């Protein structure tokens, strides 16, 4: 059973096409990248997969079923943009909430918070978080619900080097546990330290590439998007 298939997907905003006839298939668990310059539709694609947006044409399936709200809830953990967080609530309140709605015991929270080294600020309000703290909170929320497929929108964005290492370890752990993650980034260099299986958004379509060990990010990126985008 395929983990995720996107079949002949077309989607556009009012006058601006984002995808036309895009295809994607993930059959094996593991870490996958989703790379494109800013504004080319990474977030839009993840929103389409999680059915926050409806495509104008095409079909998206998860684990053998259409991406209904129920199916998404059962199978997907979605790390969204940090603007989804409530500034007046604490990190703990956010994690407790997602754990409770997903029927995950709260005892699962502490190990994850420890692993992401965020225990010390968990009870502060999100309003007082730095970008890196918010990113780690979002990752903790995605990890705690323990879903087989993780959609991670720019999880590496704004991370300091220490946080980068922590997050990379968490992702490798997820992979070792048999989870699947689709990780978006506009920074191919950063992402290649996590995975070499990458989907690129090129000309409103999705193209899969397994980057060879000797290829550098710069070469690939330049070949696909032109140097001016870098």
């Amino acid at each position, binding site marked *: 059973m395929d983990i995720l298939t996107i079949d002949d997907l077309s989607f556009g905003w009012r006058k601006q096409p984002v995808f036309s006839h895009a295809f994607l298939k993930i059959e094996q668990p593991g870490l996958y990248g989703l790379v494109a310059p800013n504004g080319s539709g990474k977030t839009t694609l993840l929103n389409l997969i999680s059915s926050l947006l409806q495509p104008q044409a095409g079909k998206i399936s998860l684990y053998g079923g259409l991406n209904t*709200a129920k199916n998404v809830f059962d199978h997907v953990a979605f790390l969204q943009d940090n603007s989804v967080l409530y500034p007046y*609530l604490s990190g703990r309140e956010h994690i407790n*909430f*997602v754990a409770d709605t997903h029927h995950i015991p709260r005892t699962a929270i502490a190990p994850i918070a420890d692993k992401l080294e965020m225990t010390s600020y968990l009870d502060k309000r999100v309003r007082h978080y730095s970008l890196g703290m918010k990113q780690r909170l979002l990752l903790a929320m995605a990890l705690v619900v323990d879903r087989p497929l993780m959609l991670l929108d720019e999880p590496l964005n704004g991370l300091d080097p220490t946080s980068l290492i922590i997050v990379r370890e968490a992702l490798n752990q997820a992979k070792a546990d048999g989870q699947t993650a689709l990780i978006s980034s506009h920074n191919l260099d950063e992402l290649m330290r996590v995975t070499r299986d990458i989907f690129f958004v090129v000309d409103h379509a999705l193209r899969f590439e397994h980057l060879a060990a000797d290829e550098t990010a710069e070469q690939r990126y330049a070949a696909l998007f032109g140097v001016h985008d870098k």
Partner: protein
Amino acid sequence: MRTLIGFEWRRLHRSGFAWGLPVLAIVLVGLFFWFSQVGVDQYRQELLNHIQSNDEILSQLIGGYRQTIADDLETADRKAEAKKDMALAVPIGDALDAQQQAVEDRSTPRYLRAVIAANTRTIAFDNALHRVLLQDHHTLTAQTKLYQTMLARGWALEDTHYTTQPVGFLVSWQSWLAQPLAVLLGVALLSTTWVTALFTNNADLMATTVQPWRRWALANWFWAVLSWLAFLTLSNAAGWLAGQWLGTPLLSGTTPWHAIVPGTGQSYWIVWVQEIGISLLWFIPMYGILLLVTTYAEKWGRQR
């Protein structure tokens, strides 16, 4: 569902809304109380103005009779008639003077008695002369009947709209809160945490965290209704205290809960409870409609 009810409470509490509401209740009641106080003073002045204008009518009338009686050119018959009529008119004027004195001395019983006297004498005058001097008899008789009851039971005279006595004040306040427009404002106010979450990116988090989605709306509805109830309770409690401490009668005496609200035939107690019920009956569906409309508006806007 319990998770969402808990979460919505956290949002209300942590966003400061749960504390803003009591403050708002007290401020609004305070404003309405002050407003009512002004209204009471005005109503007292209106009573005096009313007495004054009736008085003027009578002065003219009596002045006319006096002239007729004093006029050498008038016939004896006309003079006798004027004397007879004047004898009927003068007691009305006396009753009006008594009314004015009662208002100035702030005495409800004396005022009620004076009005009853004036009404009775006016009707007698009108019947004798086949005319309507001040007001139609229907109104006068109804007022007389009401005032007789009030006098017999010892109820205070108060304006139905503006009073600072606890019982009347709560009924006026509560009937404001039963107006659809006031309820609509309440809905707009209490939906703040819902609307701000729904039309910001917070909604994306909720969409992927709450399944099915309507649970969030239901949990929010639950707290909105409770908040409205809390608002009614708090503002009535604050109004009661304000009335007890600072309330002054229009003239004298107090209005008990079992007194009849003029023009309704029902007691203050019943009217108050009814207005609370009406307020809630408006609020619950109106808030539900808001939830529905905003949910669809958000879904519609998201795709564009």
